[in-house]
């Protein structure tokens, strides 16, 4: 069953189309990753889906409810962690959680129970009496995410929730979210961190310039776009001539990053590699290190966005 159904959704601000005719279908009980470069339209899409703004065109159903006609009914059933920090500076961590639960009409006893669990799960026990204004960015972010679990919800929107978190807190949060999904929660997750998306998401959409470029599972994306492999060669010394030497090889893209690192993208990487090595040897260019980079989501993301930019 789909819990988000958006058809031909657009959002314009004056003449600028922040979201341009997107079609979205998110199944219940999964983590749906929403990836895109800065200014791609991710946050505007989240604002549309969370009913903070109305679409300029198109139709949108969230949890079977028409988002344009009944936004409040939807907001009763969703949780939202927005990209920008949100906190009450003078409240302590535990008071923030307690008051947030109260705002969602959670009973006082239940609030207390949930608060204790969340303080433990998000490593907030030591700072429970600290005021929000005295917390670090990462601690504040943890409180912001933890706070959202003070109330029940069917669908959770997380807009770059791991920004400011250290690697251990990040992994802990991702595992916490994975466990929540097992209990039936659906998560709409935007991030810049592609390894996070690969670790967490069941399905991924890549958005750029307000348009969705592709939607698929991480594995399917790798199969579709992963034919192209990447080879990195580190030279012993700077050799600017290398680019012109290698430009003779067909069906490959060569980048010379800093004069010593050659990155080759090709679908026929083995053949290309042989030719590269031959040319380097003929020209007596010494190699320090050579590695083949397995196809990952980052490569796919960059390729999809790059192809979109060149098509435009």
């Amino acid at each position, binding site marked *: 069953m789909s819990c988000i159904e958006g058809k031909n959704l657009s959002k314009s601000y004056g003449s600028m189309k922040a979201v341009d005719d997107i079609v979205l279908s998110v199944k219940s009980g999964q983590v749906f990753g929403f990836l895109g470069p800065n200014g791609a339209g991710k946050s505007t899409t989240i*604002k549309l889906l*969370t*009913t*903070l*703004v109305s679409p300029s065109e198109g139709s949108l159903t969230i949890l079977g409810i028409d988002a344009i006609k009944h936004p*409040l009914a939807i*907001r*009763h059933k*969703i949780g*939202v962690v*927005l990209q*920008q*920090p*949100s*906190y*009450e*500076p*003078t*409240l302590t961590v535990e*008071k923030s959680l307690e*008051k947030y639960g*109260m*705002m*969602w*009409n959670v009973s006082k006893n239940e609030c207390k129970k949930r608060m204790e669990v969340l303080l433990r799960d998000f490593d907030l026990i030591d700072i429970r009496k600290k005021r929000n204004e005295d917390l670090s960015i990462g601690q504040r972010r943890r409180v912001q995410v933890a706070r959202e679990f003070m109330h029940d919800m069917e669908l959770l929107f997380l807009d770059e929730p791991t920004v400011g978190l250290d690697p251990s807190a990040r992994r802990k949060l991702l595992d916490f979210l994975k466990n929540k999904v097992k209990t039936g929660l659906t998560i709409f997750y935007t991030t810049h961190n592609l390894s996070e998306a690969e670790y967490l998401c069941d399905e991924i959409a890549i958005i750029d310039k307000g348009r969705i470029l592709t939607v698929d599972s991480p594995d399917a994306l790798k199969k579709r776009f992963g034919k192209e492999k990447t080879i990195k060669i580190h030279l012993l010394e700077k050799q600017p001539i290398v680019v012109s030497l290698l430009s003779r090889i067909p069906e490959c893209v060569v980048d010379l990053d800093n004069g010593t690192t050659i990155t080759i993208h090709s679908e026929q990487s083995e053949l290309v590699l042989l030719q590269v090595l031959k040319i380097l040897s003929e020209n007596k260019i010494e190699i320090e290190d050579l590695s083949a980079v397995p196809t990952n989501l980052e490569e796919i993301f960059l390729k999809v966005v790059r192809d979109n930019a060149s098509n435009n």
Partner: protein
Amino acid sequence: MHPIIRLVNRNLTISINPGFLIWQVIFPLIYIFVAGFAYTSLIQQVPFGSKSLDYPSFLASGMIGFNIMNSTLVSGIIIWNDRRHGMFEQIMSGPFTRAHYILSNIATIGIVGLVSASLIALVGYPVFFESVDFTFITIPVIVFAAIAGSVLFGSIASIISTRLRSSEGFNVIINTVFLFFAFVSTAFYPAEGAPEPLKTFFYLNPLTYLVDIIRAGIFGNITEFVIVEMIILASLSSVLFVVATKLLTRLDF
């Protein structure tokens, strides 16, 4: 619990801290007991309707209106803080409408205004109790003034908070506007006897109406002019409330 009550609960929790409460009591106390008695050597009696009030009584009753105005700053601060710290967007993405948010702010202002007025009335009572003339008519008049005044000044603070994002800008504007309201009014001195241009400015200031009505309520001097002032205060409050609501409704995310 109704969403508005939940938001009022939250507003009161975040805005009423010990510092705020102490300030709300200490500040007027200094005015009443220091300035009030210190100026007695200069101003022995202030004519007020058919009565003649001593200056501390006059000042203490003025401080009720002044304190209502000051306490309603809370409204502007809540909205401004919510916008600055991302809570406005967070609340709007929760089970609330903009109407809930606006009404909860008005209710918060009303509560803070009434409590504040009661507090100063209580503290100032020993000063003006000799001249007090409460009746069944005057008490509702005082309550009306406290609520209408709260809505009016709360709306002004809300309007300012919707237009400004920087803390410096917000503080400068709020302090300037409220300083004008405080000192170009009848809170500290009577309009009678003031130079004509200043007197005109007094009556361009809503705090004058609020203070006049509260004084009339406390000292039992409700005249036709006070009724006109009540109408003006109610009209101004309504207009500014509508403007503040419109601006809040149009706030972008």
